[in-house]
């Protein structure tokens, strides 16, 4: 927390070109995701889907939301929210035996 006194306002924004490339990448991943609906890949399905989801999430947050370039403080709040939510609701679903019976 004590390292928060940083200023990182002036950063270079990626070019429009870069944004397009990222969008293209996102589109490709989405296509791959949708493809799993038609092509059956068995037990690997859910892990694959999760990986792709997390990657997309990460890309949007890092590039479109500028977390890559912006102050760490923003990342910290967002990550705290995500980590709290994931861990609390993971435990919540575990108590309901969601993973074994859901």
């Amino acid at each position, binding site marked *: 927390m*004590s390292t928060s006194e940083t200023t990182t306002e002036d950063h270079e924004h990626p070019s429009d070109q870069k944004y397009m490339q990222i969008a293209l990448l996102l589109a490709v991943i989405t296509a791959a995701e949708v493809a799993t609906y038609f092509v059956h890949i068995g037990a690997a399905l859910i892990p694959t889907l999760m990986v792709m989801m997390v990657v997309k999430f990460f890309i949007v947050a890092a590039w479109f939301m500028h977390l890559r370039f912006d102050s760490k403080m923003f990342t910290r709040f967002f990550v*705290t*929210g995500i980590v*709290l939510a994931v861990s*609390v609701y993971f*435990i919540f679903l575990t*108590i309901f*035996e969601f993973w074994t019976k859901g």
Partner: protein
Amino acid sequence: MTDTMSEETSTEEQRPLGVYTRPKGGNGWRDWVTTVDHKKIGILYGAAALFFFIIGGIEALLIRLQLATPNGTVLGADMYNQVFTMHGITMIFLAAMPLAAAFANYLIPLQIGARDVAFPRLNAMSFWVFLAGGIFINLSWLLGGAPDGGWFGYAPNSGVVFSPSVGMDFYAIGLQITGIASLVSAINLTVTILNMRAPGMTLFKMPVLTWMLFVVQLLLVFAMPVIAVALFLLMFSRQFGANFFNTEMGADPLLWQHLFWIFGHPEVYILILPSFGIISEVIPTFSRKPIFGYDFMVFSGIAIGFMGWGVWAHHMFASGIGPLSVAAFSLSTMFIAVPTGVKILNWIATMWGGRIKFSAPMLFSVGVISMFTIGGLSGVTHALSPADTQQTDTYYVVAHFHYVIFGGIIFGLFAGLYFWWPKVFGHMLDEKMGKINFWVMLVGFNMTFGPMHVLGLQGMSRRIDTYSPGFGFEAWNMVATIGSFIIALSVLIFLINVVVSVKRAKGQPPCPPDPWDARSLEWMTPNPTPEHNFDEIPTVESLDEFWHRKWGTDEEGQIVRVATAEEVCQDGTATGVHLPSPSYWPLIFAIGLPFLGLGLIFNLWLTLPGAILIVTSLYAWIFEPVDDPDGPHGEHHADEKEVSEEASDV
């Protein structure tokens, strides 16, 4: 709230479309309803909270009257259920939380050396929305019955089938409204603490109170959405027939319990941490020693806030969650005693070897140390999950949480009231009456809640409107009831103290700026705090900056005075300090919300005026410049060099 950020028109030359004349200052009621000054808002929070505290207290007295004797007939079963539900809701959401908000609003900007909060108008909105929510919930008494499902509102008992009156609708919607207030205020204060510290005030030079309040705001930011979802699910179930708790269709009633307590447990730390912060300011001041182990104090506060997220199911040891879950939550709960214990012991160590003045605020603080410990220890006995299956839903739990709540929160907040009263109002409360206030309250409190331990272990259930003779409950219930009236007497003494002290101070000059030889920045301003807080924002070099400006050490290491308080304190006469202008819109926005609620409950047409008020006020708000060029502070512009723009656009 995101909506309000959409457009900022920070400077406006002429008055364009949609910008209305702003209220001018002044000192009448109009000034109060349009104020955006964090100090006035703090006072408003405090006054409203004390008002609701008395309402909640009167409800408590009714509970105690009903339970004084077996087969009591003061309230019927139906009325009793409404009264105890409203007692819990009122005390938690309308008294304890806003009283803490009063301190947060008033003191955070002062303690970090700021002129206001980050978003002054949002701050005003938070208060009015809270008040609207509080009034809205209490309107249920007149409009068809108050909530009757307990403050924890367990499904499916809170559903329409089992609670057909409108009470639980008021609960679901009203708490949603106060929730908006808490969330907005929490975001506001988070930004304030991070962004508006005086030069040199690093996070680890912030007073412990500000730190604890910071942790509280973060807990609010992350906990409020969880209760919001729970209340939405309840509201949609009641209003639109959703099946979240319809067990006939396979819904699980434990869903509500989890969501409620995922919020509910962080909530209890939201309630207690401000009080911990307050006494961390009071105890060093009157012990004439710095706080013992500042870092540990801060980190234990953070640890408590953090661990508070992993213990919620300790409210559900009998609910039928599996034994593994029970075991896990049992252990996680126990270890919360560790950081809390660090605090208790550090306060003791702070006092140890001190030269202590047991003034009224100090008495209340010492009260917290010992009384909270009792409650904390009974909490640990709850954490033994097998034992808790005997204790849960008995008066033993009621004893536990009133010891932590009354012995921890209320005593702490009273310490704060006595301590900062001169800062806020410019005169002291009577010390002697303050001491009497403390002793009467201590006796009454222990008489009321001490016996509840015994009652609980003897098997008296919670939330029962009456009990039969022959279970051995009679004597202690009577003692508790008498005790509760002694508490009421102590509160009355406080109120009389206020009246007497205000009368005595009439026509007198305000009390000196530093009556307690205090340590933190807020005391660098004169009493009462001037509207602009600091004439000049101080540059901070150390923790307890103000104290270090007064005292130094000589060659032999003795503490010697280097300056008098009067020399260090600012005189509050600066002009030309540019402050945000008052605004009507926060109030008007807040008035809109209860109409939405009433509309959902009674007649959808009622949402129309609500929506109109909300949309208009938001629109007008967005177009309203933060500072009106011809606003009440216009005259200050003569002296431009002092202008410092602290407040942002929203």
